[in-house]
């Protein structure tokens, strides 16, 4: 066992239905989280399973069908981040790619520290130690986002997370 330090980053994902006006409706979609600690990387996604009819009607024609199931819609970007970005870069890269109507907010980060097992074949044990922290922070941010957007506070959600060696 050894003390490991790292960083937990969170990014809200929203859809802006009117980029031209501050008062335009912003639809909350989900939250993506990345934790790097020691040589480990964990990535998590939580998102709504559907939009309301009213929200769907606000989305432009080209995206309306795809975005109607936000979790499926965002899972693709989660998979991309897991395979195509370096550990610690996932949310920054997503925020660079999606800065328009589909908006990944610039990530907010906090320092993390944990005592983790070392050596080979410790992935499951490491996962048990760090994934609860990632899920807790990710889900807290998600429910906070929904609560701030009162009309969507009771929508169904789903989530996925993955642990990988970063090095």
């Amino acid at each position: 066992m050894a003390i490991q330090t790292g960083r937990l980053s969170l990014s809200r994902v929203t859809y802006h239905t009117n980029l031209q006006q501050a008062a335009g409706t912003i639809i909350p979609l989900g939250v993506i989280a990345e934790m790097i600690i020691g040589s480990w990387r964990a990535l998590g996604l939580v998102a709504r399973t559907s939009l309301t009819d009213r929200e769907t009607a606000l989305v432009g024609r080209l995206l309306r069908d795809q975005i109607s199931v936000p979790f499926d819609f965002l899972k693709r970007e989660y998979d991309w981040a897991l395979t195509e970005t370096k550990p610690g870069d996932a949310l920054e890269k997503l925020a660079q790619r999606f800065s328009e109507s589909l908006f990944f907010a610039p990530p907010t980060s906090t320092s993390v520290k944990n005592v983790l097992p070392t050596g080979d074949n410790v992935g499951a044990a490491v996962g048990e130690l760090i994934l609860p922290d990632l899920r807790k922070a990710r889900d807290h941010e998600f429910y906070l986002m929904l609560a701030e957007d009162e009309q969507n506070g009771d929508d169904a959600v789903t989530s996925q997370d993955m642990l990988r060696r970063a090095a």
Partner: protein
Amino acid sequence: MGRRTYSALQARLRDEWFGIVETPDVWIDRGPMNDGESQSIRVENAATGMMGVAKPGPGKAAEEGHYRAAHEKLAFDLAYLVHLPVAPVVLWRDQAPDIYKRGRSISAWTFEQSLKWDEAQNRGLITPVLRESAGPIVSAMRVFHTWIADTDRKSDHTQVNVDSPEKSLETAFIDHGNSLAFVWKSADHPTPPQAPYMPAPEHSDVMIETAVFITGLEDGEVSRVVNRIGLPYLPADPKAHILANLLARKRNLRAILGI
């Protein structure tokens, strides 16, 4: 020319911002855009709630030799003369030159909902019919970008209207900070044409039509647009280089492009 149809609101904004150099309004910082090396930020008009994108951002405020804001404004103004869809731009003097040595520009959003071309394509949203429909504008823009020496374009500098009609993809072009005096360091600076970079078919007739239209612009009108940009945005030397190259190239666009 004149291939675009804008919403009435957008058309009014384009006219209004072409008519002025600087915004007289108060704009509020709404946080980073996070999407480019200019470190641009989102801004909100304090009176109207209109949103825009200001550049450069704080990390590039001390730059003195790039003239990003002036380039963005000039690209819009020149595109306005040619009736091409560059997002509207106005200059913003706030904190200039004390912090922002060359001031800032504010770009408006052309569409209520947009995605970068590349992301729309990755999502499979750009059907063959829509890609084909973008051909004329893409062709015209390559001529325009060649004229203003914006010769390092990328397809994700093109915005796609998410609410485009079924058979007509609406596009707008952004990010012209690395054009004009960023490239031209003298009054007669040889500059190659912008190579094809958009995954849409080119129409040689549209390219020729656009080049002829630009050639036909009155020198006085181009000069007026350039000369009204002053300090802190654009010093005299780069302004002279911009004007000399614009006037020379507009006469030779077809030869430069080989069309």
